[in-house]
């Protein structure tokens, strides 16, 4: 997202908010109008008009999709929300815009949809054009509607990850070029549709935990890096570090890795060495460069807790893990908790895992990064199975920016206990439907993966 478009959205947000509170002659409002007009005039002088378009929960600024990043999150989320509430498809600002026209327009945002439309039509805005949606928008998430490419990306990445780990395990040649390419395709896919790849990480294959887990931690870490506004070259480091965080396990006997049931104390001690072995494996796989450095530090530190505990033991407890390792620590714990493993056949519900993360902030996890994680994944992450106050059972299809507790859901079981291909509901727009609790989908023979892959 360019700085000028960020500035524009921020100044529009501030102005709309100010018109809710102050009258038009207030100094705050006057200053904000000046700032906004200065911003917009830069675009007009360059011969451009400004179009803000909302499509499928994304905001496009002059056709470029704006990413939800921590910085500027509040303003973008506010704008997305009001446009959704008012059924606005797009707003176009044209040259000749005056302060009075702008103020009158901004003050309309406090109304409901019908009043907004009525006032907009009556006021006759010459330099602000609004296009409204004519029918309720499509709620099917992008990745479900047109998700072939994203699925291809994910499963290709899974295949490459599997090859890499297996080849390391068998001490065979490792194809690093494919691996590097996978990182880039994941980054590209995430920038096109953040939630598509995240949704695919919830399809867990019990038999292929190691590969699935490595890829998922890579994807989840990348989603966090993107939300944090990291540059592409740093996303490459983070994604690689996430994918390779457990690579040291290839140096541990498969009997221990795949052992059904609980590990003995001795076996557990051996397993803990994977963080250390990872350092050698990364050097072996990638050689020495900045990306390897980030990866080997992450491998070494990804079981370091925020409070100085964890393993391997650090010489100085005050030494904090790198940002990459702190991100991977959270993603690793979340994916591990929510995946069935030999010694944990019933995984934690995603909604429970989120709360476990939260209850361990500042002890195990970096509080601030955990907040960002929950902002992205919500309290009920994608594919969570929910019991609603209507008696229906639904699965979560995607998050609503700014509403961590009210995602977009799909009814899959009606209140009579019948499996249905039910409606998709945006809970942020429907206050009558409430979530009672998260449940295990197995209880109702529901497989959320079917709703992701078979659309």
């Amino acid at each position, binding site marked *: 997202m360019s700085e000028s478009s960020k500035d524009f959205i921020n100044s529009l947000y501030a102005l709309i908010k100010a018109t809710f509170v102050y009258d038009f002659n207030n100094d705050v409002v006057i200053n904000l109008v000046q700032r906004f007009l200065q911003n917009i005039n830069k675009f007009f002088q360059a011969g451009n008009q400004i179009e803000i378009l909302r499509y499928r929960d994304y905001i496009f600024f002059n056709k470029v999709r704006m990413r939800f990043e921590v910085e500027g999150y509040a303003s973008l989320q506010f704008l997305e929300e009001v446009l959704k509430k008012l059924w606005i498809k797009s707003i176009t600002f044209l040259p000749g815009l005056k302060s009075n026209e702008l103020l009158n327009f901004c003050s309309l945002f406090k109304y409901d949809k019908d009043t907004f439309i009525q006032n907009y039509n009556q006021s006759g805005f010459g330099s602000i054009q609004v296009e409204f949606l004519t029918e309720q928008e499509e709620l099917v998430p992008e990745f479900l509607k047109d998700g072939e490419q994203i699925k291809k990306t994910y499963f290709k990445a899974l295949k490459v990850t599997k090859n890499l780990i297996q080849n390391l395990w068998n001490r065979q040649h490792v194809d690093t070029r494919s691996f590097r390419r996978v990182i880039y395709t994941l980054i590209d896919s995430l920038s096109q549709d953040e939630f598509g790849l995240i949704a695919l990480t919830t399809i867990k294959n019990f038999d292929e935990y190691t590969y699935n887990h490595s890829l998922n931690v890579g994807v989840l870490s990348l989603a966090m890096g993107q939300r944090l506004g990291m540059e592409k070259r740093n996303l490459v480091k983070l994604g690689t570090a996430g994918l390779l965080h457990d690579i040291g396990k290839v140096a541990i006997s498969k009997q221990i890795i795949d052992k059904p049931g609980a590990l003995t104390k001795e076996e557990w001690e051996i397993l803990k060495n994977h963080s250390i072995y990872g350092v*050698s494996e990364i050097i072996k796989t990638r050689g020495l460069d900045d990306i390897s450095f980030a990866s080997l530090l992450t491998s070494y530190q990804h079981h370091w807790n925020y409070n100085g505990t964890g393993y391997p033991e650090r010489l100085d407890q005050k030494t904090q893990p790198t940002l990459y390792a702190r991100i991977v620590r959270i993603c690793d714990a979340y994916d591990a908790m929510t995946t069935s493993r030999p010694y944990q056949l019933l995984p934690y519900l995603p909604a429970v895992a989120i*709360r476990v993360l939260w209850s361990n902030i500042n002890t195990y996890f970096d509080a601030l990064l955990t907040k960002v994680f929950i902002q992205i994944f919500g309290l009920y992450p994608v594919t969570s199975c929910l019991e609603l106050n209507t008696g229906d059972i639904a699965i979560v299809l995607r998050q609503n920016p700014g509403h961590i507790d009210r995602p977009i859901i799909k009814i899959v079981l009606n209140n009579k206990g019948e499996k249905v291909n039910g409606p998709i509901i945006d809970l942020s727009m429907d206050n009558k439907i409430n979530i009672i609790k998260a449940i295990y989908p197995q209880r109702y023979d529901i497989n959320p993966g079917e709703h992701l892959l078979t659309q």
Partner: protein
Amino acid sequence: MPVKITELTNDLVKTIKAAQMYQTTHPSFKNFFNQLYQDLVEYLKTNYQIVFQIERFSIRYEDYVVYEETEKDISIAFRLFRDGIREIKFSEGITDDELLIFIEVISRTDRDQDIALNLWECDLSHISFYVVEEEEEKLTYSIPEMPKMEINYDEAVKGVLSKEKIEFTDKINVDITPEELRQLKSAITEVEKQIPIGIVISTLIDALKKSQSQEIIDALVEMLELSISTNDFNNACLIVNQLWNYNDINLISRIENETLVMSFAGLPDILDEQSFNDFIALIGFFSKKSVAHFVRILKNIKNQQRLEALRNRLAYICQGDPSPLIDFLKSSDLQILTNAIVILGIIKNRSVIPLLENLILHPSVQVRMAIIDALTELGEAKMIAGFLNDVQNEVRIKALHALERIKYPPIYQRLIKTIKKRAFLKLNYNEQKAYFNCLVANRDNRITRHLEQILFKWAIFSGKKYLIKRQLAAQALAKLNSSKAIEILKKGAEKRNEDIRAICKNALKFTSTKGEDKNV
């Protein structure tokens, strides 16, 4: 085909070829590049974007082939195609920097370059491309079964909540305050910088400490070489030092050779203070076999202090063994010979004394002075005293300084005899002063009397020259600072002779009032 497209394609191909022949700063390249950029911007102003399709040996625009070259080694299309690039799109708003980066990337002809990856890494905003993966087979995926268990799922959830001590009703606020946002931004800015190599080194060594790994040792050797080649002696030292402490492994032994040592030539004069100190510390890990190479690079060092530091370091490496330097005593290169002599002295191995003795009459002043340095380190005062007869006053002065430093009381009688001679007045001031300092340093109980005699001596001839001698005698008394010496100076301060009075008054200023006896 639109004329503009033909022109643009020609511009593009010419610019790529120019980039392969010239540096991007070369005027010829700049001409082609500027033309391309100008035409591209103009085209995009009205058409917003231009998309080229990449085929095996050709580039197409819509239905037109705009470039074709079937020879793989020079075909631009083939290089792009080989790396999976199937489409390149230029959009309005493209900057000259972006275009230059693009040209640089696609001009690289080395076979191991992955153009698609390189373009991805550049993250160009107005140049996008579509890449197909090498493997085009259909990927199959299936939905894994959800293993159903014969348990009460609701109870299972309750069990987990109780074990983790959490409730679904617990409030979770993930709003990020401005202060927290600042913290996050600063953390991100931090990782955007290069990862501090010191942290990587410490981690590698820590990992090695816990699990021996050839890969890590090799990596550390590689990082050591890299650090040394970039004059990053701090990290080089960190690697060598920590590894030495942890595992008794001396990585230097794996990279130590003549070429490496010779690459340090000139460095001691240009490194900053900290880097030089790190450099000196690093050298301490080299073995005796490198000493000979180091001696060769000492010859051009201009900074005397750093030269001495290096000589000391080389002596330390020798660990008392003079053998790496003995051959240099036959060198005709005066600087090499000088350095070898000085280092031999610092080593303090007395077996070299006969070898040094052979060089006492060496024609070079520099060499004779180096021998004095070496003999000083070895405490060989008697041999140093031999240099008081040297033809060069600077050699004699050095010998006096050496004797002053290492103390050789038997020399006293000889010194006072020389001082009392008329010829003494012909020596320059520095030598005269060195004599008096040496006398004080090697004094016996006659010194006060001797100095008093010199101070108050009735001098008819050479009065002016003798004045200096008086001054030096008075200063020597002040230096002694004994009660007797002060008494003499006080007596002098009362004399009728104006010169003596002034000299003594002045000297008294340098004595302490108590007149402490300094064991005289």
